[in-house]
């Protein structure tokens, strides 16, 4: 039942009833991408490294009007999750996307893959046992 243990550790323990109780760094990634404005930020950074001003400008143009402190707060969440890094260029700071950090999102699907591999193996074994039983019964009857 290791899939349940994995799901428990990684998902169900950290996310209870939609309330994010962040306990692991991996969980932070899920929390970080759960907000549409932050996903939009990641998308902007996927195109190119950008300064906070450029990001704020795009957010304004893209229906995510918010105060500068709010922009910084969202960036902070992305930084904390390791999805984004910050570099100083003279007076401004530029933000850079770290796509590898999205690995846990991909791994999450892998948990379900393991779950089904486990179940389908059980199905195969079950059918094999039933077939053996059926043959045995037939033989007994003869």
């Amino acid at each position: 039942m290791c899939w349940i243990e994995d799901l428990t550790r990684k998902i169900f323990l950290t996310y209870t009833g939609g309330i994010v109780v962040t306990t692991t760094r991996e969980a932070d990634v899920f929390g970080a991408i759960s907000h549409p404005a932050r996903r939009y930020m990641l998308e902007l950074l996927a195109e190119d490294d950008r300064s906070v001003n450029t990001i704020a400008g795009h957010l304004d143009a893209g229906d995510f009007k918010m105060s500068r402190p709010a922009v910084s707060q969202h960036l902070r969440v992305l930084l904390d999750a390791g999805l984004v890094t910050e570099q100083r260029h003279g007076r401004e700071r530029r933000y850079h996307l770290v796509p590898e950090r999205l690995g846990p999102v991909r791994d999450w699907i892998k948990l379900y893959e393991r779950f089904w591999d486990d179940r389908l193996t059980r199905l195969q074994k079950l059918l094999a046992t039933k077939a053996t039983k059926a043959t045995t019964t037939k033989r007994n009857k003869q």
Partner: protein
Amino acid sequence: MNNTIQRELRIPQPREQVWRAITDRATLAEWMFPNDFEPRVGHRFTFQVPGNPKMNFDGLTVRCEVLECQPPSRLEFSWSAGGPVENTRVSFKLEPDGSGTRVLFEHSGFDLTQPFGEQALKGAEYGWAKMLKELATVVASRNSARETS
């Protein structure tokens, strides 16, 4: 990001036998979980995933509805377990393969833009799925490079 799980397997038993194993409530419970399945389109049922006190896991109810049921070749049901696993679809296609059966399994519809209980997104798709796909490709190619080396 590929959000569909696909598996193909060959089972030496004939199709009718496999069909029974995936549609008979008791047999289904043996390889899946306790359930109240009925082989009828529109029937709503649940799988009760048992808890594991050791792991602090309370168990889980998966809500399902039969979407397609064509004996002995096609079964599809919805699979909702919360978060990105709402209204996902699980399907089994059974094809005769000699004296056995080829099983085409698919679980699709994971919504990775909705992790874990987050409310539905409001007009903020912005090609996110496409981006995730690209990012996943990057991650995957790095991983395979690591595996090869």
